[in-house]
């Protein structure tokens, strides 16, 4: 079917640039190294009353051993998994919505989780028998359920998966709606406000090994389908019409990706509360330093997000030790500053 003769071009002309993949691998290695350093640092840093030394690390007394292996280690590993999930969810969200401002909480998951937590906290105190189940599954379960309900509501509201703009709009509407319901509920029992604040600002304080296992399993469940679907995300960047013409089923692709997004976000919100900016900044950071296709992005963004949240956790514990800052506040400061720098640079470049 060719009219022109095929000149002798080297077979590697169409393969990925050797230099590019070397950069990518280097970037991955740097991320892993940073993660390792932060993990070690997290083991050492804590409340100021603990004197740390190599001797102490290798043979701690019983109480220090508890602190080390049951508090610090699962906390930092859990923070990594949570950050990785958020980074991946952010990359998926930005791909599905083809919008660099997209982030994991777009579909109203944050508000839904907050509502779930409110109901759970209220049911725990009050004797509302209808909501006793909320108290049963605990705050984490309630946050998950709330997030899933929000997403279901968004998808139903947008009525038809072929409209990305409709989905975004529905997500915003659902977020506002559920926030309003949450506020109304809080008015009737305002003592839960303070507990809600802790949730809303995010906290890695009580991550245990069971949380780590949960987050790890969810991470695997999400990253595998996401990387498999990465070509679909690539095709989406060419435009919806073109993607459709290539044989992609847009509704099915969106459904699968949104499913991954929801699972990841719900799990994270349940465990650490609402931690903003990691999902937004991690993919941007990757794109600033590398140019990648979606398969590489879905590897690099989790690494970046994990390192980010781990670092934020470390900072929140170290700066005002032995008290701590809410980790969401730290990520907001760091993430916000980064975005400001980005905007400034962009406006300067014209």
């Amino acid at each position, binding site marked *: 079917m*060719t009219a022109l003769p095929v000149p002798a071009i080297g077979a590697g002309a*169409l393969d990925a640039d050797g230099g590019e993949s070397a950069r990518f691998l280097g970037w991955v290695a740097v991320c892993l190294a940073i993660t390792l350093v932060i993990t070690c640092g997290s083991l050492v840093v804590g409340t100021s009353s603990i004197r740390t030394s190599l001797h102490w690390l290798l043979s701690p007394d019983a109480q220090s051993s508890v602190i080390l292996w049951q508090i610090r280690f699962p906390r930092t590993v859990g923070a990594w998994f949570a950050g990785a999930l958020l980074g991946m969810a952010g990359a998926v969200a930005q791909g599905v919505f083809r919008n660099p401002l997209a982030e994991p909480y777009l579909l109203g998951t944050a508000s839904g989780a907050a509502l779930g937590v409110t109901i759970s906290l209220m049911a725990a105190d009050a004797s509302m028998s209808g909501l006793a189940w909320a108290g049963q599954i605990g705050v984490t379960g309630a946050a998950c359920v709330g997030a899933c309900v929000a997403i279901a509501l968004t998808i139903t509201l947008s009525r038809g998966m072929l409209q990305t703009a409709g989905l975004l709009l529905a997500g915003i509407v659902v977020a506002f709606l559920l926030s309003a319901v949450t506020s109304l509920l809080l008015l009737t029992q305002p003592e839960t406000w303070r507990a809600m604040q802790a949730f809303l600002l995010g906290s890695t304080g009580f991550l245990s090994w069971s949380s780590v296992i949960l987050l790890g399993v969810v991470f695997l469940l999400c990253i595998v389908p996401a990387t498999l679907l990465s070509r679909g995300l*690539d095709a989406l*960047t*060419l435009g919806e019409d*073109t993607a459709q*013409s290539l044989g992609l089923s847009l509704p099915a692709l969106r459904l699968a990706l949104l499913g991954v997004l929801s699972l990841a976000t719900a799990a994270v919100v349940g465990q650490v509360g609402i931690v903003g900016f990691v999902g937004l900044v991690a993919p941007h950071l990757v794109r600033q330093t590398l140019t990648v*296709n979606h398969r590489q992005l879905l590897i690099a963004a989790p690494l970046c997000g994990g390192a980010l949240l781990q670092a934020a956790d470390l900072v929140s514990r170290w700066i005002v030790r032995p008290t701590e800052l809410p980790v969401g506040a730290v990520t907001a400061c760091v993430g916000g500053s980064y975005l400001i720098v980005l905007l400034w640079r962009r406006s300067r470049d014209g």
Partner: protein
Amino acid sequence: MAEVMRALIPVRAGLACRELSVGYGSRTVLEGVSLDVRAACWTAVVGPNGCGKSTLLRALAGLMAPRQGTISLQGRQLTSWSRRERARRLAWLAQTATATDLTAAEVVSLGRFAHCGWLAHRTAEDAAAMRRAMLATGSLPWARRRLSTLSGGERQRVHLARMLAVEASVLVLDEPTTHLDPPHQEDVARLLRQQAHECGVCVLSAIHDLSLALMADRLIVLGDGGVIGHGTVRDALNHDWLSKAFQTSVNIVDYDGVHLWRPQLEMTSNG
């Protein structure tokens, strides 16, 4: 191979539609359209702005559900083809050449998506198809460059290569010569003609530029919510469909065997 293909092609092996009605929301753009887009033929769709060129093409390519009517691809109902089969047989080129962070090679490899699917890695055949496509459009030199770093015209050629890589039997192009400078517009026209005549491909394109459109084999002239006429270029000129469509006198001259549109600037304006 090409000669065999040409001999075997039946007349109705391209796209066809019957009583097609398309529109957006409550607005109907085209109504009662019945067309035959033949294989081994380059058909150009012309008409004034807003007459529904893109809408018609999108409907024929299966990207838009018609209000009424049927569309058939290679003799079968469009909807009866599986998504993948249809993607293998019909390739689409959008009007806007999107800029992405993907490399040109990656974009072109997406054209093989319908053939290798999600998981399958690129085979030698895929690679060969890609190379041919990129050579045909002259985009091989920047195979490793990111689309966002290329100019509009270069991007357009990469997208053309992607479309060619599908090796489909029906090509539907929406304004393929946008952003291209004249030498490359020439190349595109030559490419489309070659695909139609030598590869037996059914080529359907919407072209703004009348002179280029008149290089096609057949014309579909749209206007006034429907089809003004469809047939060979000679038919179109004989019946002056263009003037009816544009509702003004369209001056076509014959020069050296080529039909050219001659803009009339000396017209006196009356009020």
